[in-house]
Protein backbone atom coordinates (compact mmCIF):
# COMPACT_ATOMS: atom_id res chain seq x y z
CA UNK A 1 0.00 0.00 0.00
CA UNK A 2 1.64 3.19 -1.11
CA UNK A 3 1.17 6.82 -0.17
CA UNK A 4 0.53 8.05 -3.70
CA UNK A 5 -2.43 9.94 -2.26
CA UNK A 6 -0.09 12.46 -0.69
CA UNK A 7 1.70 13.25 -3.95
CA UNK A 8 -1.41 13.37 -6.10
CA UNK A 9 -3.38 15.58 -3.71
CA UNK A 10 -0.45 17.96 -3.38
CA UNK A 11 0.11 17.95 -7.16
CA UNK A 12 -3.52 18.79 -7.87
CA UNK A 13 -3.58 21.48 -5.18
CA UNK A 14 -0.48 23.16 -6.64
CA UNK A 15 -1.81 22.94 -10.19
CA UNK A 16 -5.10 24.56 -9.15
CA UNK A 17 -3.22 27.25 -7.29
CA UNK A 18 -0.95 28.00 -10.25
CA UNK A 19 -3.95 28.28 -12.57
CA UNK A 20 -5.54 30.74 -10.11
CA UNK A 21 -2.34 32.79 -9.77
CA UNK A 22 -1.95 33.05 -13.54
CA UNK A 23 -5.60 33.97 -14.11
CA UNK A 24 -5.48 36.71 -11.48
CA UNK A 25 -2.09 38.01 -12.63
CA UNK A 26 -3.24 38.31 -16.25
CA UNK A 27 -6.41 40.05 -15.09
CA UNK A 28 -4.46 42.59 -13.02
CA UNK A 29 -1.88 43.22 -15.73
CA UNK A 30 -4.73 43.79 -18.18
CA UNK A 31 -6.33 46.27 -15.78
CA UNK A 32 -3.03 48.13 -15.44
CA UNK A 33 -2.61 48.16 -19.22
CA UNK A 34 -6.20 49.26 -19.70
CA UNK A 35 -7.10 46.30 -21.91
CA UNK A 36 -9.62 43.47 -21.61
CA UNK A 37 -8.27 40.07 -20.56
CA UNK A 38 -11.19 38.06 -21.89
CA UNK A 39 -11.60 36.13 -18.63
CA UNK A 40 -15.17 35.92 -17.30
CA UNK A 41 -15.49 37.85 -13.99
CA UNK A 42 -16.52 34.68 -12.13
CA UNK A 43 -13.26 32.98 -13.21
CA UNK A 44 -11.28 35.89 -11.74
CA UNK A 45 -13.32 35.82 -8.50
CA UNK A 46 -12.88 32.06 -8.28
CA UNK A 47 -9.11 32.50 -8.71
CA UNK A 48 -9.06 35.14 -5.98
CA UNK A 49 -11.02 32.78 -3.69
CA UNK A 50 -8.60 29.88 -4.27
CA UNK A 51 -5.58 32.05 -3.46
CA UNK A 52 -7.26 33.60 -0.39
CA UNK A 53 -8.20 30.16 1.00
CA UNK A 54 -4.66 28.94 0.45
CA UNK A 55 -3.11 31.98 2.13
CA UNK A 56 -5.43 31.65 5.11
CA UNK A 57 -4.42 28.00 5.60
CA UNK A 58 -0.77 28.82 5.05
CA UNK A 59 -0.88 31.58 7.69
CA UNK A 60 -1.63 29.11 10.48
CA UNK A 61 1.04 26.66 9.39
CA UNK A 62 3.69 29.33 8.84
CA UNK A 63 3.02 30.78 12.31
CA UNK A 64 3.48 27.35 13.88
CA UNK A 65 6.65 26.72 11.90
CA UNK A 66 8.08 30.15 12.74
CA UNK A 67 7.58 29.52 16.47
CA UNK A 68 9.46 26.21 16.10
CA UNK A 69 6.26 24.40 17.04
CA UNK A 70 5.19 21.25 15.21
CA UNK A 71 3.03 22.05 12.18
CA UNK A 72 -0.21 20.20 12.87
CA UNK A 73 -3.37 19.47 10.90
CA UNK A 74 -1.37 19.50 7.67
CA UNK A 75 0.12 16.71 5.59
CA UNK A 76 3.82 16.39 4.95
CA UNK A 77 3.70 18.27 1.64
CA UNK A 78 1.82 21.21 3.09
CA UNK A 79 4.19 21.27 6.07
CA UNK A 80 7.09 21.33 3.62
CA UNK A 81 5.50 24.19 1.73
CA UNK A 82 5.00 26.20 4.94
CA UNK A 83 8.66 25.63 5.83
CA UNK A 84 9.81 26.59 2.31
CA UNK A 85 7.70 29.74 2.55
CA UNK A 86 9.28 30.63 5.86
CA UNK A 87 12.79 29.94 4.56
CA UNK A 88 12.18 32.17 1.54
CA UNK A 89 10.82 35.12 3.54
CA UNK A 90 13.05 38.14 3.30
CA UNK A 91 15.86 36.08 1.79
CA UNK A 92 14.90 34.91 -1.69
CA UNK A 93 11.67 36.85 -2.05
CA UNK A 94 11.02 40.43 -1.00
CA UNK A 95 7.46 41.13 -2.14
CA UNK A 96 4.75 42.16 0.36
CA UNK A 97 3.66 38.55 0.82
CA UNK A 98 7.10 37.53 1.97
CA UNK A 99 7.80 40.41 4.35
CA UNK A 100 7.94 40.10 8.13
CA UNK A 101 4.25 39.55 8.84
CA UNK A 102 2.03 37.68 6.42
CA UNK A 103 -0.52 40.28 5.19
CA UNK A 104 -4.23 39.56 5.46
CA UNK A 105 -5.13 37.77 2.20
CA UNK A 106 -8.23 39.88 1.61
CA UNK A 107 -6.21 43.10 1.96
CA UNK A 108 -3.49 41.87 -0.38
CA UNK A 109 -5.85 40.46 -2.99
CA UNK A 110 -8.32 43.33 -3.00
CA UNK A 111 -5.98 45.66 -4.86
CA UNK A 112 -7.77 48.77 -6.11
CA UNK A 113 -5.13 51.40 -6.89
CA UNK A 114 -2.39 50.98 -9.51
CA UNK A 115 0.22 50.84 -6.77
CA UNK A 116 -1.67 48.14 -4.85
CA UNK A 117 -2.05 46.16 -8.05
CA UNK A 118 1.68 46.34 -8.74
CA UNK A 119 2.36 45.21 -5.17
CA UNK A 120 -0.01 42.30 -5.64
CA UNK A 121 1.64 41.33 -8.93
CA UNK A 122 5.03 41.13 -7.23
CA UNK A 123 3.59 38.90 -4.53
CA UNK A 124 1.85 36.66 -7.06
CA UNK A 125 5.08 36.27 -9.04
CA UNK A 126 7.01 35.21 -5.91
CA UNK A 127 4.24 32.87 -4.82
CA UNK A 128 4.17 31.32 -8.29
CA UNK A 129 7.89 30.60 -8.14
CA UNK A 130 7.49 28.98 -4.72
CA UNK A 131 4.60 26.77 -5.87
CA UNK A 132 6.35 25.84 -9.11
CA UNK A 133 9.35 24.68 -7.09
CA UNK A 134 7.07 22.80 -4.73
CA UNK A 135 5.13 20.96 -7.43
CA UNK A 136 8.37 19.55 -8.87
CA UNK A 137 8.71 17.05 -6.01
CA UNK A 138 5.16 15.77 -6.55
CA UNK A 139 5.68 15.63 -10.29
CA UNK A 140 8.82 13.56 -9.77
CA UNK A 141 6.93 11.15 -7.56
CA UNK A 142 4.01 10.83 -9.95
CA UNK A 143 5.80 10.90 -13.28
CA UNK A 144 9.36 9.90 -12.39
CA UNK A 145 12.51 11.35 -13.89
CA UNK A 146 13.66 11.13 -17.47
Amino acid at each position, binding site marked *: *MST*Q*WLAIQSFQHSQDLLAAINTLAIHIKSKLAGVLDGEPPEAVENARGIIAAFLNDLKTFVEEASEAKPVIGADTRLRQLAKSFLAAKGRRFHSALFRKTLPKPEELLDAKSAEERRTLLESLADLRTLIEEHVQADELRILGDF
Partner: protein
Amino acid sequence: MKEILRHSNLDLLRELEQLGVIIRPLSVPAELEVYHRWVLGKCEALRKAVVRNLGRLELLRDDILPEILSSTQAVTREFHQFNRWLVSPVLRARESDRLSLKILQWLHFSHPRTRNIPAALSDGDFASWPVPPLPTIYFMPCSAQHGLLYLPIFFHEFGHVLYACHRDEMDQLVRELQEQIGELLLPSVLRDDLQAKREEEKRSIIVETWYEWTQELFCDAAGYTIGGPCFAYAFSMYLCMRGRSQFYVKEKELHRREHPVTWLRVRLLVDRARRQGKEEQARELELHWSTIADAMHVTEDYHGFYEPELRPVVQQTIADMLTEASPVGLENESSESSGIVDVSSPVPLLNEAWTRFRAAPQHYPEWERSAVASLLR
Protein backbone atom coordinates in the same frame (compact mmCIF):
# COMPACT_ATOMS: atom_id res chain seq x y z
CA MET B 1 9.98 33.22 -26.30
CA LYS B 2 6.66 33.63 -28.08
CA GLU B 3 7.70 31.18 -30.78
CA ILE B 4 8.93 28.62 -28.22
CA LEU B 5 5.60 28.85 -26.40
CA ARG B 6 3.61 28.66 -29.64
CA HIS B 7 5.45 25.52 -30.76
CA SER B 8 5.11 23.87 -27.35
CA ASN B 9 1.37 24.52 -27.26
CA LEU B 10 0.90 23.34 -30.84
CA ASP B 11 2.79 20.16 -29.98
CA LEU B 12 0.50 19.59 -26.99
CA LEU B 13 -2.51 20.17 -29.21
CA ARG B 14 -1.25 17.57 -31.67
CA GLU B 15 -0.63 15.03 -28.89
CA LEU B 16 -4.07 15.63 -27.37
CA GLU B 17 -5.77 15.19 -30.72
CA GLN B 18 -3.83 11.96 -31.25
CA LEU B 19 -4.89 10.72 -27.81
CA GLY B 20 -8.52 11.58 -28.56
CA VAL B 21 -8.38 9.49 -31.74
CA ILE B 22 -7.14 6.51 -29.70
CA ILE B 23 -9.54 6.83 -26.78
CA ARG B 24 -12.80 7.85 -28.46
CA PRO B 25 -13.67 4.57 -30.24
CA LEU B 26 -12.59 2.30 -27.35
CA SER B 27 -15.12 -0.15 -26.07
CA VAL B 28 -15.00 -0.57 -22.29
CA PRO B 29 -16.90 -2.68 -19.74
CA ALA B 30 -20.23 -1.11 -18.72
CA GLU B 31 -18.80 -0.44 -15.23
CA LEU B 32 -16.18 1.84 -16.79
CA GLU B 33 -18.37 3.85 -19.12
CA VAL B 34 -18.75 6.86 -16.80
CA TYR B 35 -14.98 7.03 -16.37
CA HIS B 36 -14.47 6.68 -20.13
CA ARG B 37 -16.72 9.70 -20.64
CA TRP B 38 -14.77 11.61 -17.99
CA VAL B 39 -11.47 10.85 -19.76
CA LEU B 40 -12.89 12.20 -23.03
CA GLY B 41 -14.09 15.31 -21.20
CA LYS B 42 -10.70 15.79 -19.57
CA CYS B 43 -9.00 15.48 -22.95
CA GLU B 44 -11.25 18.24 -24.22
CA ALA B 45 -10.59 20.41 -21.14
CA LEU B 46 -6.83 20.09 -21.69
CA ARG B 47 -7.29 20.98 -25.35
CA LYS B 48 -9.22 24.10 -24.34
CA ALA B 49 -6.44 25.10 -21.91
CA VAL B 50 -3.89 24.82 -24.72
CA VAL B 51 -6.11 26.79 -27.10
CA ARG B 52 -6.43 29.49 -24.40
CA ASN B 53 -2.64 29.70 -24.19
CA LEU B 54 -2.42 30.07 -27.97
CA GLY B 55 -5.13 32.72 -27.86
CA ARG B 56 -3.23 34.68 -25.21
CA LEU B 57 -0.08 34.49 -27.37
CA GLU B 58 -2.01 36.05 -30.22
CA LEU B 59 -2.66 39.11 -28.05
CA LEU B 60 1.01 39.99 -28.67
CA ARG B 61 1.47 41.21 -25.10
CA ASP B 62 4.95 40.77 -23.69
CA ASP B 63 3.78 41.63 -20.16
CA ILE B 64 1.82 38.37 -19.81
CA LEU B 65 4.50 36.05 -21.18
CA PRO B 66 5.51 34.85 -17.66
CA GLU B 67 1.90 33.78 -17.07
CA ILE B 68 1.66 32.06 -20.47
CA LEU B 69 4.92 30.24 -19.76
CA SER B 70 3.68 29.11 -16.36
CA SER B 71 0.30 28.04 -17.84
CA THR B 72 2.02 26.13 -20.62
CA GLN B 73 4.24 24.33 -18.13
CA ALA B 74 1.21 23.55 -15.93
CA VAL B 75 -0.83 22.13 -18.79
CA THR B 76 2.21 20.14 -19.96
CA ARG B 77 2.55 18.59 -16.48
CA GLU B 78 -1.15 17.83 -16.41
CA PHE B 79 -1.03 16.31 -19.88
CA HIS B 80 1.83 13.99 -18.87
CA GLN B 81 -0.07 12.95 -15.76
CA PHE B 82 -3.17 12.35 -17.88
CA ASN B 83 -1.27 10.48 -20.58
CA ARG B 84 0.66 8.33 -18.14
CA TRP B 85 -1.92 7.51 -15.47
CA LEU B 86 -5.46 8.65 -16.19
CA VAL B 87 -5.84 7.22 -19.67
CA SER B 88 -4.47 3.78 -18.83
CA PRO B 89 -7.55 2.48 -16.95
CA VAL B 90 -9.39 2.88 -20.26
CA LEU B 91 -6.61 1.66 -22.54
CA ARG B 92 -5.87 -1.41 -20.42
CA ALA B 93 -9.55 -2.19 -19.75
CA ARG B 94 -10.42 -5.87 -20.00
CA GLU B 95 -13.36 -8.06 -19.17
CA SER B 96 -11.71 -9.27 -15.97
CA ASP B 97 -11.75 -5.69 -14.60
CA ARG B 98 -15.49 -6.06 -14.10
CA LEU B 99 -14.97 -7.87 -10.80
CA SER B 100 -12.95 -5.07 -9.20
CA LEU B 101 -15.04 -2.35 -10.84
CA LYS B 102 -18.25 -3.89 -9.53
CA ILE B 103 -16.90 -3.78 -5.97
CA LEU B 104 -15.64 -0.20 -6.45
CA GLN B 105 -18.97 0.88 -7.90
CA TRP B 106 -20.82 -0.58 -4.92
CA LEU B 107 -18.34 1.11 -2.58
CA HIS B 108 -18.71 4.54 -4.16
CA PHE B 109 -22.47 4.18 -4.34
CA SER B 110 -22.59 3.28 -0.64
CA HIS B 111 -21.87 6.85 0.46
CA PRO B 112 -23.75 10.05 -0.49
CA ARG B 113 -20.51 12.03 -0.91
CA THR B 114 -18.90 9.48 -3.25
CA ARG B 115 -21.97 8.37 -5.18
CA ASN B 116 -21.19 10.63 -8.13
CA ILE B 117 -17.43 10.12 -8.15
CA PRO B 118 -16.44 7.65 -10.87
CA ALA B 119 -13.92 4.94 -10.00
CA ALA B 120 -11.35 3.30 -12.25
CA LEU B 121 -8.82 0.50 -11.94
CA SER B 122 -5.15 0.41 -12.82
CA ASP B 123 -2.23 -1.97 -12.28
CA GLY B 124 0.22 -1.53 -9.42
CA ASP B 125 0.67 -2.05 -5.71
CA PHE B 126 -2.46 -1.18 -3.72
CA ALA B 127 -2.90 2.60 -3.81
CA SER B 128 -5.46 5.22 -4.71
CA TRP B 129 -5.67 8.72 -6.12
CA PRO B 130 -8.35 10.35 -4.00
CA VAL B 131 -8.90 13.88 -5.25
CA PRO B 132 -12.68 14.42 -5.17
CA PRO B 133 -14.64 15.44 -7.16
CA LEU B 134 -12.20 14.02 -9.73
CA PRO B 135 -12.55 10.28 -10.39
CA THR B 136 -10.67 8.00 -8.02
CA ILE B 137 -8.09 5.71 -9.57
CA TYR B 138 -7.52 2.51 -7.61
CA PHE B 139 -4.35 0.51 -8.15
CA MET B 140 -4.21 -3.23 -7.58
CA PRO B 141 -1.60 -5.91 -8.33
CA CYS B 142 -2.46 -7.80 -11.55
CA SER B 143 -2.80 -11.24 -9.97
CA ALA B 144 -5.17 -9.96 -7.27
CA GLN B 145 -7.52 -8.51 -9.87
CA HIS B 146 -8.80 -11.95 -10.80
CA GLY B 147 -9.87 -13.11 -7.36
CA LEU B 148 -11.92 -12.18 -4.32
CA LEU B 149 -9.40 -12.42 -1.51
CA TYR B 150 -7.66 -9.06 -1.82
CA LEU B 151 -10.62 -6.96 -2.90
CA PRO B 152 -11.26 -5.89 0.74
CA ILE B 153 -8.04 -3.85 0.62
CA PHE B 154 -9.99 -1.42 -1.56
CA PHE B 155 -11.99 -0.63 1.60
CA HIS B 156 -8.83 0.88 3.10
CA GLU B 157 -8.19 2.90 -0.07
CA PHE B 158 -11.80 4.09 -0.01
CA GLY B 159 -11.02 5.47 3.45
CA HIS B 160 -8.68 7.98 1.77
CA VAL B 161 -11.55 9.10 -0.47
CA LEU B 162 -13.82 9.54 2.56
CA TYR B 163 -11.09 11.52 4.33
CA ALA B 164 -10.72 13.81 1.32
CA CYS B 165 -14.51 14.27 1.12
CA HIS B 166 -14.60 15.39 4.79
CA ARG B 167 -11.20 17.08 4.81
CA ASP B 168 -11.95 20.12 6.99
CA GLU B 169 -13.60 18.15 9.78
CA MET B 170 -11.05 15.32 9.58
CA ASP B 171 -8.07 17.69 9.63
CA GLN B 172 -9.53 19.35 12.71
CA LEU B 173 -9.88 16.00 14.50
CA VAL B 174 -6.32 15.05 13.57
CA ARG B 175 -5.09 18.45 14.72
CA GLU B 176 -6.70 17.90 18.13
CA LEU B 177 -5.14 14.44 18.36
CA GLN B 178 -1.72 15.84 17.49
CA GLU B 179 -2.11 18.40 20.29
CA GLN B 180 -3.03 15.63 22.74
CA ILE B 181 -0.08 13.49 21.66
CA GLY B 182 2.23 16.48 22.08
CA GLU B 183 0.98 16.91 25.66
CA LEU B 184 1.16 13.22 26.50
CA LEU B 185 4.76 13.06 25.31
CA LEU B 186 5.85 15.99 27.47
CA PRO B 187 8.26 14.93 30.23
CA SER B 188 7.14 15.48 33.81
CA VAL B 189 10.14 17.76 34.42
CA LEU B 190 11.19 20.29 31.78
CA ARG B 191 14.92 20.86 31.65
CA ASP B 192 16.79 23.53 29.73
CA ASP B 193 19.81 21.83 28.22
CA LEU B 194 20.98 20.37 24.94
CA GLN B 195 19.43 16.97 25.62
CA ALA B 196 16.07 18.60 26.37
CA LYS B 197 16.28 20.52 23.10
CA ARG B 198 16.94 17.29 21.18
CA GLU B 199 14.00 15.63 22.89
CA GLU B 200 11.78 18.57 21.99
CA GLU B 201 12.81 18.28 18.35
CA LYS B 202 12.01 14.58 18.40
CA ARG B 203 8.61 15.27 20.00
CA SER B 204 7.92 17.75 17.23
CA ILE B 205 8.77 15.17 14.56
CA ILE B 206 6.57 12.57 16.26
CA VAL B 207 3.63 14.97 16.52
CA GLU B 208 3.93 15.94 12.83
CA THR B 209 4.29 12.31 11.73
CA TRP B 210 0.99 11.47 13.37
CA TYR B 211 -0.90 13.43 10.69
CA GLU B 212 -0.18 10.78 8.07
CA TRP B 213 -0.35 7.93 10.59
CA THR B 214 -3.79 8.96 11.78
CA GLN B 215 -5.11 9.04 8.24
CA GLU B 216 -3.71 5.56 7.56
CA LEU B 217 -5.14 4.23 10.82
CA PHE B 218 -8.48 5.78 10.01
CA CYS B 219 -8.39 4.03 6.61
CA ASP B 220 -7.60 0.70 8.32
CA ALA B 221 -10.54 1.27 10.66
CA ALA B 222 -12.77 2.22 7.72
CA GLY B 223 -11.66 -0.99 5.98
CA TYR B 224 -12.55 -3.05 9.01
CA THR B 225 -15.86 -1.24 9.46
CA ILE B 226 -16.86 -1.90 5.86
CA GLY B 227 -15.50 -5.41 5.48
CA GLY B 228 -15.13 -6.87 8.98
CA PRO B 229 -13.03 -10.06 9.17
CA CYS B 230 -12.36 -10.24 5.40
CA PHE B 231 -10.54 -6.90 5.59
CA ALA B 232 -8.39 -7.99 8.53
CA TYR B 233 -7.45 -11.28 6.84
CA ALA B 234 -6.66 -9.60 3.50
CA PHE B 235 -4.62 -6.90 5.17
CA SER B 236 -2.71 -9.36 7.32
CA MET B 237 -2.03 -11.86 4.53
CA TYR B 238 -0.95 -9.16 2.12
CA LEU B 239 1.66 -7.70 4.48
CA CYS B 240 2.73 -10.38 6.97
CA MET B 241 5.41 -12.00 4.79
CA ARG B 242 7.02 -8.78 3.58
CA GLY B 243 9.83 -9.09 6.09
CA ARG B 244 11.23 -7.34 9.10
CA SER B 245 10.24 -3.83 8.08
CA GLN B 246 6.61 -4.73 8.75
CA PHE B 247 7.49 -5.40 12.38
CA TYR B 248 10.31 -3.06 13.21
CA VAL B 249 11.66 0.17 11.72
CA LYS B 250 14.80 1.96 12.91
CA GLU B 251 14.24 5.23 14.72
CA LYS B 252 15.79 7.38 12.01
CA GLU B 253 13.61 5.76 9.35
CA LEU B 254 10.51 6.40 11.45
CA HIS B 255 11.05 10.13 11.19
CA ARG B 256 8.18 11.50 9.12
CA ARG B 257 7.42 7.99 7.82
CA GLU B 258 4.10 8.11 6.00
CA HIS B 259 2.78 4.73 7.23
CA PRO B 260 2.78 3.48 10.80
CA VAL B 261 4.72 0.22 11.27
CA THR B 262 2.40 -2.58 10.13
CA TRP B 263 2.65 -4.45 13.43
CA LEU B 264 1.24 -1.39 15.17
CA ARG B 265 -1.57 -1.21 12.63
CA VAL B 266 -2.36 -4.86 13.33
CA ARG B 267 -2.34 -4.17 17.09
CA LEU B 268 -4.89 -1.40 16.63
CA LEU B 269 -7.03 -3.57 14.32
CA VAL B 270 -6.92 -6.31 16.96
CA ASP B 271 -8.03 -3.78 19.55
CA ARG B 272 -10.89 -2.74 17.27
CA ALA B 273 -11.96 -6.37 16.69
CA ARG B 274 -11.85 -6.99 20.43
CA ARG B 275 -14.00 -3.94 21.17
CA GLN B 276 -16.56 -5.33 18.75
CA GLY B 277 -16.60 -8.64 20.56
CA LYS B 278 -14.68 -10.51 17.87
CA GLU B 279 -12.33 -12.01 20.41
CA GLU B 280 -11.48 -15.13 18.42
CA GLN B 281 -10.35 -13.22 15.36
CA ALA B 282 -8.49 -10.72 17.53
CA ARG B 283 -6.56 -13.46 19.32
CA GLU B 284 -5.82 -15.25 16.08
CA LEU B 285 -4.42 -12.15 14.35
CA GLU B 286 -2.36 -11.23 17.40
CA LEU B 287 -0.88 -14.72 17.59
CA HIS B 288 -0.19 -14.82 13.85
CA TRP B 289 1.93 -11.65 13.95
CA SER B 290 3.66 -12.36 17.25
CA THR B 291 4.59 -15.88 16.04
CA ILE B 292 6.34 -14.40 12.99
CA ALA B 293 7.99 -11.71 15.13
CA ASP B 294 9.24 -14.33 17.61
CA ALA B 295 10.64 -16.44 14.79
CA MET B 296 12.65 -13.40 13.63
CA HIS B 297 13.57 -12.43 17.23
CA VAL B 298 12.01 -9.02 16.71
CA THR B 299 11.10 -7.02 19.79
CA GLU B 300 8.29 -4.53 19.50
CA ASP B 301 9.70 -1.01 19.71
CA TYR B 302 8.37 2.15 18.08
CA HIS B 303 11.05 4.41 19.54
CA GLY B 304 8.57 6.69 21.27
CA PHE B 305 6.46 7.24 18.16
CA TYR B 306 3.85 5.08 19.82
CA GLU B 307 3.40 4.20 23.47
CA PRO B 308 0.50 2.22 24.95
CA GLU B 309 -0.75 5.34 26.77
CA LEU B 310 -1.49 6.92 23.39
CA ARG B 311 -3.94 4.16 22.49
CA PRO B 312 -7.10 5.60 24.14
CA VAL B 313 -6.74 9.03 22.49
CA VAL B 314 -5.81 7.51 19.13
CA GLN B 315 -8.75 5.08 19.17
CA GLN B 316 -11.15 7.82 20.33
CA THR B 317 -10.05 10.06 17.44
CA ILE B 318 -10.44 7.21 14.96
CA ALA B 319 -13.92 6.54 16.35
CA ASP B 320 -14.81 10.23 15.92
CA MET B 321 -13.45 10.19 12.39
CA LEU B 322 -15.56 7.14 11.57
CA THR B 323 -18.62 8.89 12.92
CA GLU B 324 -17.80 11.93 10.77
CA ALA B 325 -17.15 9.94 7.58
CA SER B 326 -19.84 7.34 8.26
CA PRO B 327 -18.67 4.52 5.99
CA VAL B 328 -21.12 1.77 5.13
CA GLY B 329 -21.08 -0.85 7.87
CA LEU B 330 -20.76 1.65 10.71
CA GLU B 331 -24.44 1.22 11.54
CA ASN B 332 -23.86 -2.52 12.09
CA GLU B 333 -21.26 -1.78 14.75
CA SER B 334 -23.74 0.14 16.85
CA SER B 335 -26.22 -1.56 19.14
CA GLU B 336 -28.94 0.48 17.47
CA SER B 337 -28.41 -1.28 14.14
CA SER B 338 -31.42 -1.00 11.85
CA GLY B 339 -31.11 -4.67 10.93
CA ILE B 340 -31.60 -3.80 7.25
CA VAL B 341 -29.49 -6.05 5.04
CA ASP B 342 -27.96 -4.52 1.91
CA VAL B 343 -28.59 -7.29 -0.62
CA SER B 344 -26.24 -5.71 -3.16
CA SER B 345 -23.31 -5.77 -0.72
CA PRO B 346 -20.40 -7.95 -1.78
CA VAL B 347 -19.14 -8.06 1.82
CA PRO B 348 -20.82 -11.39 2.79
CA LEU B 349 -19.29 -13.01 -0.29
CA LEU B 350 -15.82 -11.64 0.52
CA ASN B 351 -16.12 -12.94 4.07
CA GLU B 352 -17.24 -16.32 2.77
CA ALA B 353 -14.23 -16.35 0.45
CA TRP B 354 -11.85 -15.96 3.39
CA THR B 355 -13.71 -18.56 5.45
CA ARG B 356 -13.42 -21.05 2.61
CA PHE B 357 -9.83 -20.22 1.80
CA ARG B 358 -8.76 -20.58 5.41
CA ALA B 359 -10.66 -23.85 5.84
CA ALA B 360 -9.47 -25.56 2.64
CA PRO B 361 -7.04 -23.50 0.51
CA GLN B 362 -6.57 -26.39 -1.95
CA HIS B 363 -10.25 -26.42 -2.88
CA TYR B 364 -10.62 -22.66 -2.85
CA PRO B 365 -9.78 -21.78 -6.49
CA GLU B 366 -12.59 -23.92 -7.82
CA TRP B 367 -15.15 -22.33 -5.51
CA GLU B 368 -13.80 -18.85 -6.30
CA ARG B 369 -14.18 -19.32 -10.06
CA SER B 370 -17.81 -20.23 -9.66
CA ALA B 371 -18.48 -17.45 -7.10
CA VAL B 372 -16.93 -14.80 -9.38
CA ALA B 373 -18.93 -16.05 -12.36
CA SER B 374 -22.16 -15.81 -10.33
CA LEU B 375 -21.30 -12.33 -9.12
CA LEU B 376 -20.69 -11.06 -12.64
CA ARG B 377 -23.78 -12.70 -14.14
